[in-house]
């Protein structure tokens, strides 16, 4: 079981939290049973991540009223995230005790009716709130009056809950801002006998034992981290005693532990888990003190190495200190340090990383390699609310990026380099295929981002339906491959004579290629087509967006008060080495 503090720790700590933290979130919690303490635990866990969290716990078992009454405190609270945590006992009522007091058909009708009720709550809530809505599924009872015969029954109590869970999952899979929390998974992971304490239940209708409130909140924090775009994007790995057992420089190629039997299989298992993360878009990098040739021999030739050279977006295998190595990785991948998780078996390296670069998430890695996978599984820092095609291709794209960098080194002159890149940008207005990716870029992009306005998926959806808004995305291709959708812009077209650039951003992957000028040329062309003669823009400086600082003046914008303006009477030249395609 992952280590967790008792609930009383969080209750006490919640009283002494700092008043101001950089990021903010409002969380509403609705429940069919006593969930006191959840709010305080959220506040503390958020504060640990520099998030100021304001919570609102709905009145005991009043979730129906809170949702159905659009004047309720829930809506007045105006949450960013709303959790609705229901439990199997409450939903079944007397059927929890006597499921077979009614026949199979009636049981089916009952489940259908309950599903419709919940569906209605989801609908009403979505119509009346911009908040993300996370509803828990139901834990499947493991005990039955029928004992071992239960699983022989037609549409028995387990099947009923299974069916309800399935219907809910099918229903919410197409909804944009509604998610299903796997409560059944939570209960089975920790065990029904632990999570449910009969005395606490009878004494105070506490259906998640107090000791498990922090565990539950920790799982739910995954949604908070993902909503605020704080998910980690890259795992930086040590080699010796991390990806294989032993030390390659001392033990040698044939003696390191890596293979199908124990203990080498622990490392194979860990590598397979990492490969799974890589396949869904988490980048992997190496930061190891070793002779490059020794390490490469293992990576390229060892028959049991699961991770190959092409799976690593960046490799720093040298005798430099790990802190400078990770800074270089950050520089090469164009990712801020806050996107990195650092994994190293040596506690001294970890301490050094923690104290020098606190932005990097250094995890306390277990001593025993059998627990490596679990250590990563238990951290919920890789959660995202949407996995796009770009995510799945990301690992491959970064391998191409490495080739681009090598090519850049071979070509001494930047102009020649860009000309030889065979750049092509495809600019499209937002559609249902690109909206999730646009929202993702808006939430995550820090560096080449003019205003750093963060819009949720629902906002992007609304912009795309608004005739007064031009919202589009940019796909970038070059001779090394497709970078996918890596740019986005939002233009307000309310004025007849002037348009306002609300959002303009490029992923760090495609920075430094003058693509921004091609996008601006596209927007200017659209403006001219609509007889607009001025575009206004604002540069909102942040700690991270220095790379875009000179973009407006470089493109001919002039400062007018707080805004920058460009008059559209002259021809705007976009780079001739970039082919623009409009769709």
């Amino acid at each position, binding site marked *: 079981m992952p280590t967790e503090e*008792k*609930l*009383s720790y969080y*209750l*006490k700590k919640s*009283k002494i939290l700092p008043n101001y933290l950089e990021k903010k979130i409002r969380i509403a919690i609705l429940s069919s049973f*006593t969930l*006191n*303490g959840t709010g305080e635990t959220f506040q503390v866990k958020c504060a640990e991540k520099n998030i100021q969290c304001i919570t609102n716990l709905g009145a005991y078992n009043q979730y129906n009223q809170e949702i159905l009454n659009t004047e309720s405190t829930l809506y007045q609270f105006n949450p960013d995230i709303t959790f609705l945590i229901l439990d199997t006992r409450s939903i079944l009522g007397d059927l929890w005790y006597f499921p077979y007091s009614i026949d199979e058909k009636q049981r089916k009708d009952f489940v259908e009716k309950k599903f419709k009720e919940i569906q209605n709550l989801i609908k009403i809530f979505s119509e009346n709130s911009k908040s993300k809505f996370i509803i828990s599924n139901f834990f499947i009872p493991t005990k039955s009056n029928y004992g071992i015969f239960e699983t022989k029954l037609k549409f028995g109590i387990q099947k009923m809950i299974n069916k309800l869970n399935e219907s809910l999952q099918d229903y919410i899979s197409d909804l944009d801002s509604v998610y299903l929390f796997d409560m059944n998974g939570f209960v089975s992971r920790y065990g029904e006998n632990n999570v449910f304490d009969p*005395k*606490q239940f*009878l*004494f*105070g209708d*506490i259906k998640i034992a*107090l*000791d498990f409130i922090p565990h539950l909140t920790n799982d739910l924090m995954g949604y908070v981290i993902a909503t605020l775009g704080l998910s980690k994007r890259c795992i930086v790995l040590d080699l010796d005693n991390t990806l294989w057992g032993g030390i390659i420089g001392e033990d040698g190629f044939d003696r390191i532990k890596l293979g199908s039997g124990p203990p080498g299989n622990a490392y194979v298992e860990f590598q397979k888990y990492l490969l799974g993360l890589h396949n869904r878009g988490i980048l992997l990098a190496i930061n190891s003190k070793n002779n490059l040739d020794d390490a490469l021999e293992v990576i390229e030739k060892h028959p049991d190495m699961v991770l190959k050279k092409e799976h690593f977006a960046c490799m720093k295998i040298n005798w430099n200190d790990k802190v400078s190595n990770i800074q270089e990785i950050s520089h090469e991948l164009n990712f801020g340090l806050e996107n990195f998780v650092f994994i190293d078996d040596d506690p001294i390296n970890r301490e050094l990383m923690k104290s020098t670069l606190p932005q990097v998430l250094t995890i306390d890695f277990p001593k025993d390699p059998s627990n490596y996978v679990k250590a990563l599984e238990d951290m919920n820092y890789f959660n995202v609310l949407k996995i796009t095609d770009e995510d799945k291709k990301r690992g491959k794209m970064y391998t191409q990026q490495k080739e681009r960098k090598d090519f850049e080194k071979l070509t001494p002159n930047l102009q020649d380099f860009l000309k030889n890149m065979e750049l092509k940008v495809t600019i499209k207005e937002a559609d249902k295929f690109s909206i999730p990716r646009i929202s993702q870029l808006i939430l995550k992009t820090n560096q080449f981002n003019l205003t750093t306005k963060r819009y949720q998926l629902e906002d992007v959806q609304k912009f795309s339906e608004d005739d007064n808004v031009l919202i589009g995305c940019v796909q970038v291709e070059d001779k090394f491959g497709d970078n996918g959708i890596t740019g986005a812009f939002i233009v307000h077209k309310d004025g007849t004579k002037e348009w306002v650039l609300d959002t303009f951003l490029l992923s760090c992957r495609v920075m430094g290629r003058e693509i921004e000028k091609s996008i601006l040329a596209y927007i200017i062309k659209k403006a001219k087509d609509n007889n607009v003669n001025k575009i206004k823009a604002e540069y909102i400086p942040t700690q991270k967006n220095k790379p875009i600082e000179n973009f407006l003046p470089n493109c001919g914008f002039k400062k007018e008060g707080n805004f920058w303006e460009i008059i559209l009477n002259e021809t705007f030249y976009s780079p001739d080495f970039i082919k623009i395609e409009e769709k």
Partner: protein
Amino acid sequence: MSENLYGIIARVMDVPISEINDDSSPETIPSWDSFNSYILLDELESEFKTEFTIDEVTETKNVSDIKKHLKNHGIILDD
């Protein structure tokens, strides 16, 4: 040990330990609401490595009741 019991109650109820005595109860300590009594129960069970029965829990009206139950569980408190 008595100090320890008072200490736990003071910590859970978020009041100075000097305010706790054997007569302390939900009537005398405003923060001693029903939820804090569940928390207190949970803390006492962990601290003294014992489990109270639901009868004991419902009968508990003040600190001296807690002491009585602990004594019945064989837990010696120094007075």
